[in-house]
């Protein structure tokens, strides 16, 4: 069994309205050091696989097909 952590975030070139709102809120709380906030998604998977290379291929596929929208989002993942 493999534990996987997938991170999906908006591409750097895409503006992130949620991130901007969170940044403004942090500023109003006094955290003026915050220069940028990007809000993304964190997805945990448990795979019934032992082969890490195969898992990596499969996860890449899942991200491209469903977990992320490649037009607006980037993804990374970690197999633990």
């Amino acid at each position, binding site marked *: 069994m493999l534990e996987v952590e997938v991170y999906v975030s*908006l591409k750097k*070139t*895409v*503006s992130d*309205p*949620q991130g901007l*709102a969170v940044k403004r809120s942090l500023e109003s709380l006094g955290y003026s050091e915050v220069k940028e906030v990007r809000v993304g*998604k964190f997805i945990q998977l448990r795979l019934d696989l032992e082969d890490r290379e195969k898992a990596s291929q499969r996860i890449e596929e899942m991200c491209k097909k*469903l*977990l992320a*929208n490649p*037009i*607006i989002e980037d993804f990374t993942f970690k197999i633990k």
Partner: protein
Amino acid sequence: MKWGVVIFPGSNCDQDCFYVIKDVLGEEVRYVWHKETDLRDLDCLILPGGFSYGDYLRAGAIACFSPVMEALVDFAKKGGLIMGICNGFQILLEAGLLPGAMLRNKNIHFICKYVYLRVENIHTPFTNLFKEGQVVRIPIAHNEGNYYIEDEGLVELKNNKQIIFRYSDEEGRLAPEFNPNGAKEFIAGIINKEGNVLGMMPHPERASEGILNSQDGLLVFKSIVNWFKR
């Protein structure tokens, strides 16, 4: 001609669309459950608004993998007319039947109000009864209507006259203050290159009777009927 209104789990404007087609227009229509795979009896499909699959992951993302979608892609390839309204538009984007993607509204609020739209192209099955540059009043109701497309795709949209509706003021002027959600180039509705698949964020079915304060939306439905009669 015969219409189909597709219902996904979480669609909630299906009955409004059905009512407009059947009772206001007097046309033949049936519901299409998302598990159906035979659409051969239909000429025009509506993907209604709502929150298919609770907008989980991204609006429209999960609906793309409903059984009906394979038949729907085939239907589109054969030239059948498809109109995606609001969540229906989001589904068409996620399915790759229309270019681009939706981001959260710029002000991160759900926006529900009447807006003005300028009709940008009347040479389509969906807009042939509008006048060139006509300004219409139709409501929006969405959380993710901030249309995004990369610059290259935008040039293609413009070159092929695929932009159908833009947010404007009542005189048809374009400016950021009349753009409710931050959509690129004020885009409210687009069509595919082949001209048979339309996606629009505003709800024409909510502006199809006098009692609803605007009948401008009815012209979209009537244009489709007219296109089949010609």
